[in-house]
């Protein structure tokens, strides 16, 4: 009996069942009607139904679709979002008075022209007529004023760019808007791309009562968290805050766009290497995020049709030194530390494709002084500096604590390099892997700020002044962008003076003087100028901005200038 049962080979029907299930799923799961599944969920649909709960991958036949991955979460309220994903979405969903260029200047956008008063305190913008919001209503000066007031009342996002600088906004007629400044502010026009214009009527109609902003309720924050109220080249088609946003082309957009620009632009919230690689291989992801490792980019570059683009984004990696804590309160120690890094190895092997820094701002920003000598690896020089420091002979009592960001594993390689070289010159460097949230907590006070911390900082507008302001102004101390606690009044007043200088060339020259002064004090080590890497499907995408990159976050992904072949 037992042997008879043994002959009933259970595994044969089981295996058959499993195979049949796979075949059935494969057959049914990816196809229906006119839909055909490509690999990994890539689909081609004749009808192009609305996407939901799924990811990028579906594309109606003949449709031009662009799908790119980004670090998440995404905040699409123009009074809140500032990071790369948010900036990208805002650039596509909203328009602004002016548009940044690669040279750091601005060009007309919603404003077709502007006048500046002789005292440079009054900017009068003349708006284009017929600019339509996505609901069809016309954009007027009242919307600009409302957008500005909303941004400042909420006090988040890019509001800091205008805080204390703009006294009032006036709207003498529907097509004229006047900004009155409290004091001259040279880069004012460069900051205006960050003032995204919202549809005031739509926002007011969706303000939730009982919010924190008096008669404005919640100022439409709940609504704009999930919807757009813009006039940009794209409008929200579907937004799943967990996974992706799909934006469709707005047919009545007022400005130019490439005739081959995508009909749909989907931003996908993932940076997971295996997902990105599989998606790019299958054609369900067209542009990768910039957070892949060097090894991952190498692998992506080997995929058929894929290229890896690299463009300077105006940012810099700093090893910020606490100037109020021993031993980095001593300039000689700071100089010695700067000589313990091999910058060639960093830019070629650890962060390949990045550029060696010349000074405390990225070389691509207008106002960067390219004549400042790059820092260099010099063990003998480091020894000499340490010998000249007030801690000479007792350095063993003053370990240098170096916190590197746990979420960026490559930073550990810099820390280990510094530690190894420091040992050779008798300096004890203690490396601490620290989560980002803890770093933010630590750097909020000088006594808890470590001697060294590695942090990348990017500019919010395309001028060296943006970086100098957020890095070295006294007002910015205690934020994660300024952990040096430099508090140098001379530099502070030099920055204020430069920012209030109207003449562009004069202002840029002042920036350069500040940069030289900063390098004399060396509160931070500019490890390298950051370069954003993105793998993209060059076989069907023409990424025109690569020819002339705009060093302002988000603008490289203005989809109206990206040409895509139809699926």
């Amino acid at each position, binding site marked *: 009996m037992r042997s008879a049962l043994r002959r009933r080979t259970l595994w044969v029907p089981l295996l058959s069942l499993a195979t049949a299930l796979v075949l059935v799923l494969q057959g049914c799961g*990816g196809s229906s009607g006119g839909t055909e599944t490509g690999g990994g969920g890539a*689909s081609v649909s004749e009808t192009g139904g609305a996407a939901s709960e799924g990811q990028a991958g579906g594309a109606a036949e003949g449709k031009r679709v662009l799908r790119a991955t980004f670090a998440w979460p995404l905040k699409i309220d123009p009074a809140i979002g500032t990071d790369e994903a948010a900036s990208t979405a805002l650039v596509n969903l909203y328009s602004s008075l002016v548009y940044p260029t690669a040279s750091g200047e601005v060009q007309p956008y919603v404003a077709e022209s502007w006048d500046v008063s002789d005292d440079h305190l009054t900017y009068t913008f003349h708006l284009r007529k017929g600019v339509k919001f996505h609901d069809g209503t016309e954009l007027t000066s009242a919307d600009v004023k409302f957008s500005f007031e909303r941004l400042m009342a909420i006090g988040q996002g890019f509001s800091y760019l205008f805080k204390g600088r703009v006294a009032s906004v006036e709207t003498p007629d529907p097509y004229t808007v006047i900004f009155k400044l409290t004091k001259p502010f040279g880069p004012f026009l460069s900051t205006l791309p960050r003032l995204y214009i919202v549809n005031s009527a739509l926002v007011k109609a969706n303000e939730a009562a009982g919010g924190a902003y008096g008669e404005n309720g919640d100022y439409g924050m709940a609504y704009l968290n999930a919807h757009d109220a813009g006039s940009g080249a794209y409008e929200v088609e579907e937004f799943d805050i967990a996974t992706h946003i799909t934006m469709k082309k707005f047919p009545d957009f007022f400005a130019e766009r490439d005739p081959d620009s995508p009909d749909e632009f989907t931003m996908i919230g993932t940076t997971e290497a295996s997902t990105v690689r*599989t998606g790019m291989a299958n054609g369900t992801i067209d542009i990768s995020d910039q957070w892949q490792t060097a090894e991952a980019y190498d692998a992506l570059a080997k995929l058929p049709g894929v290229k890896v683009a690299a463009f300077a984004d105006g940012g810099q990696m700093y090893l910020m030194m606490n100037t109020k804590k021993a031993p980095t309160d001593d300039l000689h120690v700071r100089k010695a530390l700067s000589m313990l890094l091999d910058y060639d190895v960093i830019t070629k092997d650890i962060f390949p494709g990045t550029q060696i820094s010349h000074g405390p701002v990225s070389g691509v920003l207008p106002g960067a002084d390219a004549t400042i000598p790059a820092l260099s690896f010099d063990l003998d020089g480091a020894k000499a500096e340490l010998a000249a420091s007030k801690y000479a002979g007792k350095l063993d009592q003053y370990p240098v604590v170096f916190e590197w960001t746990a979420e960026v594993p490559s930073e550990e390689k810099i820390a280990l390099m510094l530690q190894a070289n420091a040992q050779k010159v008798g300096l004890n460097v203690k490396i601490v892997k620290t989560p980002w949230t803890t770093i933010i907590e630590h750097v909020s006070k000088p006594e808890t700020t470590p001697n060294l911390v590695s942090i990348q900082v990017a500019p919010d507008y395309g001028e060296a002044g943006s970086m100098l302001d957020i890095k070295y102004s006294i007002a910015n101390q205690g*934020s994660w*962008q300024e952990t040096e606690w430099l508090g140098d009044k001379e530099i502070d007043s030099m920055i204020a003076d430069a920012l209030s200088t109207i003449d562009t060339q004069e202002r840029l020259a002042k920036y350069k003087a500040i940069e030289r002064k900063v390098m004399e004090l060396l509160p931070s080590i500019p490890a390298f100028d950051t370069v954003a890497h993105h793998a993209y499907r060059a076989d069907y995408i023409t990424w025109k901005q690569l020819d002339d990159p705009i060093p302002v976050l988000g603008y490289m992904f203005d989809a109206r200038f990206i040409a895509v072949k139809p699926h």
Partner: protein
Amino acid sequence: MSVLGFVYRRILHSIVVLFGLSVLIFLLVRVVPGDPVKLALGPHASGEAVALMRAQLHLDKPLPAQYVYWLADALHGNFGESLQTRRPVSQDIAQYLPATFELALFAGAVMATGGILLGTLSAYRKDSWIDNLVRVLAYLGVVTPAFVFAVLFMLFFSYFEHWFPNSGRLDPNLVAPPRITGLITVDSLLAGDWHAFVNALYHLVLPGVALAMAGLSQQARIVRAALVDYLAQDFVAAHRTYGIPEWKILLRYALKPSLIPGVSILGLDFAALMGNAFLVELIFNWPGLSRYGIEAILQKDVNAVAATVLVLGVVFTAANILVDVVVAGLDPRIRLRMGREAA
């Protein structure tokens, strides 16, 4: 009635446990370094904006007062606003929980059926090549983390062979069925949308199987060990001498009691699936609660962390109670013990 009494008691115990969990997680999330408001608002937020958010989160109050506010709101289903998504946490949970629940249900089904089938086959073919193969694979399954399976499955079945999709819950060209339960497979069946059902199932395969592998392997090992023991018992030999068919001995007399240890573990495994799904959800871009919770921890999203842990705690305790009931159904001795405990 005795089992019912036992369940009532377990529910009361669970409420105490959940209360303790809420205190613990509330305190833990607040003592971890990092200012949640500064993290949420960024380095340039105005002082007014920071103060406003602190007041909204009651962070300007002492810890006990904060807890009272939080508990009072939570009892009304209001877990506050998420700092990540800037919308009510309850709304986030309502969106993310069904996705993880559906994934865990699928993985649980794979885990249970696969584990029992392989364990039975292995025990029945004890010391054969099938048994050896299953045991080796089970060892591998137990020691290999789910995310490794996730990556391997994605590479083999999505990257090299385009058999299964690599992300999401449904092909983007499909319209999701009207949301009733949030489980797309169930909602599509309720809507009579057979194609969406199959498509959703198709999306569940890779993440679900990857997530199930560890539990499946453990099940297979436990079922095998228990079944081998039972098949060697005297009563089985007695049944054979009475001429009872071998399949009947196996399925009716030996397998049923052999499932008890496996089922006990299954409930815990299922609850663990909900919490451990993070990396699988990340790799397959699955919009679930587990991924949401981990992101919340990284961003110190205090309200989201507390609510997510509490929800997972509820699932965990509910799964435990359910397992106790199922085990009682399988073993009359346990029913008797429950009755005594309830009395």
